[in-house]
């Protein structure tokens, strides 16, 4: 090492601890995956939302840390008695990061772009119910729907419905411009994205002045980085088993929360012998959910008994419906005409939770005579073979979209579950505007799925956050993947 380099290194080593002790108003968050672009309309990659949602971009509404809807760029709204017309009052004095004003025209532009035939918005369903958008004045947007849609507002709070300015939308992939509390500063590819506080922000100016998202995919490097203080927080550990090493560190807080990812053993309900509910129930009885959770995610997942997030107020705990009982499973199989079991394939996408769960489940099913052969496939193949062509027996995947129980009402969905009663229930929920009633119906829907043993519902994918004990405001759960920097602050 040259003398100069040594001197610089020494200086850094000396200065660093002091710099850290001065009142800190910056934050560095480590996350596992790097976003491919910074424009949420270019793809479904969650990493884009983790960096940009509520930091750079804002929508008419937002989801808060409890999963509740809150007004954001829309100050307030009214819904017509027939539930078809939504009138949004927009906030005044909001500016995009390039200095231009935010107004109704931007909303109209953004939504019409998302609805257009050539739109590549991954959540186009959000905008599908829209019949037309009118802007009677600069700060009013009137949206008319084709039919009443219970989840319309909820969809508008997603990271896919954030508002762009027409002049800058083409640049968003690498130079994102939004109305949020943080401006994009730079992107060092392969390493980090840096944001700085937007001092012209329309609401309260947040405490943190600079935020850096660092992308660290190596689980061991994540552990090292947070221990060394190179990052102040890890939003979600890359490998659950790494949490063990950090639990006893007095400077760190390990918070096990939930995502909206229901991890399920999906069953091809249309394919014999799985079209027999007794076979599906036998499979449910044959699986020891707690062993799967221990072996696959080191015990950190919340068990679920239906396709619904435990975070949601409408959640019903149905984990006791099919207790682990190999004898009962064998009896059910015999009843269904398979006393000696049968052969099946289990297609596994790449994430470790799926591969590990698959190995354990294959071993458990073997105990009751179901001989499962494991076929690991890439995500591209999973989408092609399993998801699109429904060419599978069993598969394991986490459905990470929030409140996605409606997928069971799609007859052509890859589960191939066809139950008119369920579809009618979902249609009713769609048009039910009263929240309590809607939650009651959601409960009914959950029970229906469990009774029909459509899939085996395993566990909610955990979000294991780790952060400095002095950092407050990180989201403990992910009702939507988000790390809003404006909610963070350092304890004095």
């Amino acid at each position: 090492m040259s003398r100069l380099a040594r001197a610089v290194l020494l200086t850094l080593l000396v200065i660093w601890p002091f710099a850290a002790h001065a009142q800190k108003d910056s934050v560095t968050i480590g996350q596992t995956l790097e976003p491919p672009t910074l424009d949420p309309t270019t793809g479904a990659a969650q990493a884009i939302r983790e960096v940009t949602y509520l930091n750079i971009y804002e929508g008419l509404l937002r989801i808060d840390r409890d999963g509740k809807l809150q007004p954001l760029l829309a100050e307030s709204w009214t819904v017509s008695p027939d539930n078809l017309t939504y009138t949004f009052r927009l906030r005044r004095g909001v500016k995009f990061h390039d200095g231009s004003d935010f107004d109704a025209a931007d909303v109209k532009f953004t939504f019409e772009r998302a609805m257009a035939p050539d739109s590549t918005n991954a959540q186009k369903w959000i905008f599908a119910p829209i019949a037309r958008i009118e802007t009677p004045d600069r700060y009013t947007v009137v949206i008319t729907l084709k039919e009443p849609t219970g989840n319309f507002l909820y969809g508008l709070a997603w990271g896919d419905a954030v508002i762009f300015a027409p002049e800058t939308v083409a640049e968003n992939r690498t130079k994102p411009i939004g109305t949020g509390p943080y401006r994009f500063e730079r992107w060092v590819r392969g390493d980090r994205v840096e944001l700085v506080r937007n001092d012209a922000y329309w609401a309260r100016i947040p405490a943190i002045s600079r935020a850096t998202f660092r992308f660290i995919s190596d689980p061991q490097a994540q552990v090292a980085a947070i221990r060394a203080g190179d990052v102040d927080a890890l939003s979600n550990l890359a490998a659950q088993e790494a949490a063990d090493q950090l639990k006893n560190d007095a400077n760190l807080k390990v918070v096990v929360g939930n995502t909206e990812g229901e991890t399920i053993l999906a069953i091809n309900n249309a394919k014999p012998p799985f079209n027999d509910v007794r076979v599906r129930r036998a499979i449910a009885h044959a699986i020891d959910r707690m062993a799967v959770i221990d072996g696959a995610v080191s015990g950190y997942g919340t068990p679920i008994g239906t396709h619904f997030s435990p975070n949601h107020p409408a959640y019903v705990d149905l984990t006791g419906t099919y207790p682990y009982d190999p004898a009962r499973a064998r009896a059910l199989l015999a009843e269904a005409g398979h006393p000696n079991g049968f052969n099946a394939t289990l297609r596994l996408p790449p994430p470790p939770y799926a591969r590990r769960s698959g190995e354990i489940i294959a071993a458990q099913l073997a105990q009751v005579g179901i001989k499962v052969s494991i076929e690991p496939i890439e995500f591209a193949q999973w989408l092609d073979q399993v998801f699109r062509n429904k060419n599978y027996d069993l598969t394991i995947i986490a459905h990470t979209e929030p409140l996605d129980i409606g997928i069971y009402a799609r007859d052509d969905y890859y589960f191939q579950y066809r139950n008119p009663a369920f579809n009618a229930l979902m249609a009713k929920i769609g048009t039910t505007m009263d929240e309590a009633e809607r939650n009651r119906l959601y409960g009914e829907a959950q029970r229906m799925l469990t009774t029909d043993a459509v899939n085996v519902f395993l566990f909610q994918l955990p979000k294991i956050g780790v952060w400095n004990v002095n950092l407050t405001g990180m989201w403990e759960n992910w009702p939507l993947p988000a790390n809003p920097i404006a909610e963070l602050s350092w304890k004095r």
Partner: protein
Amino acid sequence: MKFPRAAAIMQRPALAAGATITLLLAMVALVSLVWTPYPYTDMNIAMRLQPPSARHWLGTDQFGRDILSMLMAGSRNSFAVGFVAVGIGLGIGVALGTTAAVRGGIVDDVVMRLADFTFAFPAVLSAIMITAWLGPGAVNAIIAIGIFNIPVFARLSRGSALQVLSRDFILAARAAGKGMARITVEHVLPNIAGILVVQATIQFALAILAEAGLAYLGLGTQPPNPSWGRMLNEAQTFMHRSPWLAIFPGAAIALAVLGFNLLGDGLRDLIDPKLRRARS
């Protein structure tokens, strides 16, 4: 003190060591067919990540499976990969190589161009693409490795065959009215068999390494069949608390590769002592 021919003496021990290691591994593979300490697929989540002990000599993995049993069964996998991948290369490669040597001309040109062409593609990357196309799994990994063995044997058998063909007894055979096909079978192949066996042993070692690499990337042998490479892949995130998971499977791979390499080198010296020094 002087060791006049220390390395020379080392040569035969190398052969002995190579033969011993490979025989031992072969025996382990055979034994694993009828007996392992525990069934290698038996999971016991309560006993996960146990360190080596009297009950589990090499400890247990993240599902509570016995590592020793998995390693034993994994040796079968490595042997199978080696045999089939080298078999593909040997079968097709020698056929192409000797044909090229005997026929010469345009056939020779085409075969050698193809061999060069195959070499231009990075082997690991190509194997990854092949498994992406055909799907991951032992068979496809073997095919991918086998394809890259073909040009190796094609070149070697062509070169060796050309040497044999220039010898006097070939002329004698031709004079006696034997056809080229017969000459190839009766004279060329027996004369190049030795060098091919040596190369096959070396390629066997390389095939084991290659499969381990692909399995490490998640593209080789799939569960529940144990594979040393995949065991390493699964060990990586548990390494901080259970280092044995990462140590034993790698040692098994290294031992197997060492064994076959030593055997190959030893055989080469036995067949052609002149080649000893020129080994590279």
